[in-house]
């Protein structure tokens, strides 16, 4: 934090329950572009503004009003989630305790192009390939059929599954220059990039019809829309680039704007989806035990935006729809979500008109792994030197 940055201290209009502190902290990043960092406590919120973006008295009032709006939306009448732990292996012996980032940066194994955008070198890539092989073997154990999905996703599809209402803050939009010779000529001759971004006027760009995909499994559901599933069930697997804008929360390999997910996706009856989700959890547990990975599996909710959070998060918690794999990060005495076990009930089946043989809406679920985060958590637990890694991993690296 630059020394000259301005701080606004705010007393929340209503007390913030402990279970909402981290949620409010992450959502306040989206309250105003001038916010550089946020520190939330139950009775006080500290807002640091970017250096060089000092605010007038009126602007400070405006920022405080936005902060209070976020707090009120999330904290007022918040329903405490049911905290469930399905597995706890955080006590596994971890040989490494330093932050691996400095060593990875200095050796050129990771390079940050921009906040949340990273290039990965051979070591991290080898590790990701190892985990990919593990997840593909897992997918094969379910007879999952391989798919390849695009990085782009149509806006009309995300609208159909309520994504704009649920996660507007994290969307990444795609555009291009309008098909207009004058516009293209003007751009080619005068386009320049400053710290603020391209100098191109917004009217030079096309209307947005496409976004960068925020998840992998959505593409499978889209391909099944308005159809009856011939065999009554589908098991699929795919890996893909995913994009979730996280503003000032885009920090290190822990939180990337552009990341990679491997998913195993189940579509069918409720029992089919739930049984396979549980079976997947058990099989993942066996694999992670073999490498001595320290983690726990606990209940979680998706990062809904403020308008939807109260209802959606409580619903997910009540019906045990989401569990996350939280890997130990010894260097910060904390954990990081590296994967999740998800059950969507018949949400996609209904909204996309995907039906089963009996005419009922299909249920869906997926098991998802963030590959860069898996690699980071492993490096945080075992260090950046492959000679220190468990034989189960080092013997299977495809050098």
């Amino acid at each position, binding site marked *: 934090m630059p020394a000259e940055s301005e701080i606004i201290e705010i007393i929340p209009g209503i007390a913030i329950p402990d279970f909402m502190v981290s949620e409010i902290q992450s959502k306040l990043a989206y309250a105003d572009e001038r916010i550089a960092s946020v520190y939330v406590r139950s009775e006080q919120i500290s807002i640091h503004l970017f250096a060089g973006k000092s605010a007038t008295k009126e602007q400070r009032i405006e920022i405080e009003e936005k902060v209070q709006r976020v707090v009120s939306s999330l904290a007022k009448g918040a329903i405490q989630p049911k905290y469930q732990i399905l597995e706890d292996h955080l006590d596994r012996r971890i040989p490494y305790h330093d932050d691996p980032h400095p060593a990875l940066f200095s050796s050129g194994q990771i390079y940050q192009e921009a906040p949340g955008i990273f290039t990965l070198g051979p070591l991290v890539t080898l590790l990701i390939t190892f985990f990919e092989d593990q997840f593909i073997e897992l997918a094969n154990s379910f007879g999952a059929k391989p798919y390849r999905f695009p990085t782009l996703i149509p806006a009309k599809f995300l609208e159909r599954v309520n994504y704009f209402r649920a996660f507007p803050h994290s969307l990444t939009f795609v555009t291009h220059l309008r098909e207009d010779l004058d516009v293209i000529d003007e751009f080619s001759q005068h386009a320049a990039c400053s710290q603020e971004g391209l100098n191109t006027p917004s009217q030079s760009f096309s209307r947005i019809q496409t976004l960068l995909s925020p998840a992998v499994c959505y593409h499978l559901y889209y391909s099944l829309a308005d159809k009856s599933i011939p065999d009554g069930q589908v098991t699929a697997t795919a890996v893909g680039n995913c994009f979730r804008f996280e503003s000032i929360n885009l920090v290190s390999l822990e939180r990337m704007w552009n990341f990679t997910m491997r998913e195993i996706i189940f579509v069918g009856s409720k029992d089919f989806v739930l049984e396979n989700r549980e079976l997947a959890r058990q099989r993942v547990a066996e694999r992670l035990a073999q490498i001595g990975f320290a983690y726990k599996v606990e209940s979680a909710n998706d990062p809904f935006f403020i308008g939807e959070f109260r209802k959606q998060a409580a*619903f997910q918690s009540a019906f045990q729809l989401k569990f996350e794999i939280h890997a130990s990060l010894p260097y910060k005495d904390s954990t990081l979500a590296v994967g999740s076990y998800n059950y969507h*009930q018949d949400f996609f089946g209904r909204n996309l008109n995907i039906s089963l043989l009996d005419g009922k809406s299909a249920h869906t679920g997926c098991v998802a792994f963030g590959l860069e985060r898996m690699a980071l958590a492993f490096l945080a637990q075992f260090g950046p030197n492959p000679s220190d890694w468990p034989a189960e991993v080092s013997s299977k690296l495809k050098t």
Partner: protein
Amino acid sequence: MPEISPITIELVQSLLAEALQVPPDLITPDLAFGDLPQWDSLGHMEIMLRLEDQFGVSINTDEIAQLISVPQICQYLEFNGHAG
């Protein structure tokens, strides 16, 4: 299981019709979560929040998962002293 008062059923039918924004005659006495397209996850939470607002009860996550039919909501209200 004690019989549910017809007045409680009427109260709940009225609340559900408003929460789900459907005509009251669609809220049958044995209606359950998922029986109407409107009684989806968001519709269900709208019902839960209206129960809290109108009856002054505090609903937890276990109850959100249990109160998934008109009879269960009626029994919950009567058990909590809101018999019709």
